[in-house]
């Protein structure tokens, strides 16, 4: 059994004892700009007297290299032929989505308008609402999850089964709509899948109907827009037609409009 006991006396008081160097700092830099901020020095790194013109030129010099480094990074990413190439797909789907969206844009409020409205409406700062902090532990296989209908955390606005309808008319400035809402389709549906039967006149079912009804998405109101094109010389009165969504025999409701005297 070997033991080595400590020696007597306190070696620690020996002024020659080696000590750690002071660290550069004592913690990480957690600001969002990070420590690797722009490398351009705030003052010129030269002790010489330089004229403002020269100082300006040096600043230009720093800008040029910064721009080059940034471009080089992008170019290198494109040039890379290695195995791990960033897939182009997310960008392309955005392009495709944009094209589809431009169609919708022609008929309804754009997302930019939505942003704009939100900007104006959300001027006030809101403190984080305390929605009740307790969160249940993760479900286990045996304790099967309760009904997966989501706990609706949004304030109960409208009844979600109702879909708002805005009717726009072409060719009949005094026309009025008597339908403000329809049942929301049970499955998510495209506006193109929603159709209306030709609107028949209430007083004259066999007469000339109004056939041109087109539906479009209205993102600003989370509903749909119905565009009714009224032909010249259409008789006055009330017109109605059933509205269906493709794949569902049960109509969503009835679209009723009025052409006044």
């Amino acid at each position: 059994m070997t033991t080595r006991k400590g020696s007597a006396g306190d070696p620690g008081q020996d002024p020659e004892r080696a000590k750690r160097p002071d660290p550069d700092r004592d913690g990480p830099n957690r600001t969002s700009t990070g420590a690797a901020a722009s490398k351009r020095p705030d003052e010129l790194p030269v002790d010489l007297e330089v004229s403002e013109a020269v100082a300006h030129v040096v600043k230009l010099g720093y800008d040029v290299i910064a721009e080059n480094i940034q471009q080089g990074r992008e170019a290198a990413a494109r040039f890379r032929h290695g195995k791990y190439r960033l897939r182009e797909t997310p960008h392309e789907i955005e392009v495709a989505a944009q094209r589809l969206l431009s169609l919708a844009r022609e008929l309804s409020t754009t997302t930019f308008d939505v942003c704009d409205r939100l900007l104006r409406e959300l001027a006030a700062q809101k403190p984080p609402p305390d929605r009740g902090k307790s969160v249940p532990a993760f479900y286990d296989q045996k304790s099967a999850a309760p009904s997966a209908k989501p706990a609706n955390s949004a304030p109960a606005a409208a009844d979600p089964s109702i879909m708002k309808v805005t009717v726009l008319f072409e060719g009949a400035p005094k026309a009025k709509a008597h339908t403000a809402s329809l049942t929301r389709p049970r499955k998510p549906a495209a506006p193109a899948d929603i159709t209306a039967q030709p609107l028949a006149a209430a007083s004259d079912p066999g007469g000339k109907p109004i056939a041109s009804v087109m539906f479009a998405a209205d993102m600003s109101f989370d509903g749909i827009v119905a565009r009714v094109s009224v032909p010249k010389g259409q008789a006055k009165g009330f017109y109605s037609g059933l509205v269906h969504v493709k794949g569902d025999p049960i109509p969503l409701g009835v679209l009723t409009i009025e052409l006044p005297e």
Partner: protein
Amino acid sequence: MTAAAALAEKPGAPPRCDMAGAMAAYGDATRAELEAYLNAQPRAPFLDDLLADYPSRGGKMLRPSICIANARAFGGELETAVRCAAAIEILHNGLLIHDDIQDGSEMRRGRPTLHALHGAPLAINAGDAMMFTALRPLIDALRPLGGDAAEQVLDVSMTMARETAEGQALELGWRDRNIVALTEADYFRMALKKTAWMGMIWPAQLGLIVGSRGRADPQSVVRFGYFLGVAFQIEDDLRNLCVDPYYGKEMNGDLFEAKRTLMLIHARQACSDAERARVDAFLSLPRAERSPDEVLWLAAMMLRLGSIDHGRAVAAAMAGAAAHEFTLAYGGLPPSPDRSFIAGLSTWIFTRP
């Protein structure tokens, strides 16, 4: 106090290095390695003499020196560093051959250019051959270092190649399409791409990669090499304008070439409208029609407008920026003669023969 001296006396600067002596040593080591590789090929008529020509004309071996110094400063051994340097020098000479053809130059280092001696086809061929020859010492340098280092070398070399090509295209474009309304930023961009990348940044990066065995970050020396390269280029251009011809080039050759130097850009911005019209007319002439009188007028105007002084001041400021960037990039390395050499480059630019 001159700019050079002022920079050298900065407190905390590394000990002064005998730049000439160091470069001679780096150069000799490179030359020996280079000759070994060039001689190792089986003899080919019409080629070998051409291959050996430019390297034999002397030259300061600035790029190889930068490479070797960086390699050793980052902890590498001389043997590997020298192979890398030889590759750089061979490549550089190959490009010089092509450059001279492109520029239509007739002299290099006091002797006729290669294509002047042997005709363009043989010279082009020799240039190509040199570039391939550069691969062998490079591969030998990289072999023991592993895949990571090799990949980094490829990365930085592709970047350098792209930048250099862009720089040359830029300059040719300015000339061929007679672009006159250029700014200092344009000049820096061009100097960066055409001179700094291949002359300063890339040799430093290769040295860094080889010396640190792929551990250090090649990005860290980009700014330093850039400012150094720009200062170097301005100084080159200044010397061409002044009375003292060097490198055996023609005096005021740049003006005849209508080279868009910083001084020319400054002069063109500072002069009167009438003078500018005359400058632009001069620039738009074909080279053969630019008269020595007009050249002298242009040179005198530049002197009068302070363009020369401006150029000197900017060059000094660039060198100062280089010195600052040196601290950022190399400050963490242990002191060594090689590191002192790198530090000394900021002032050597102005004091070199």
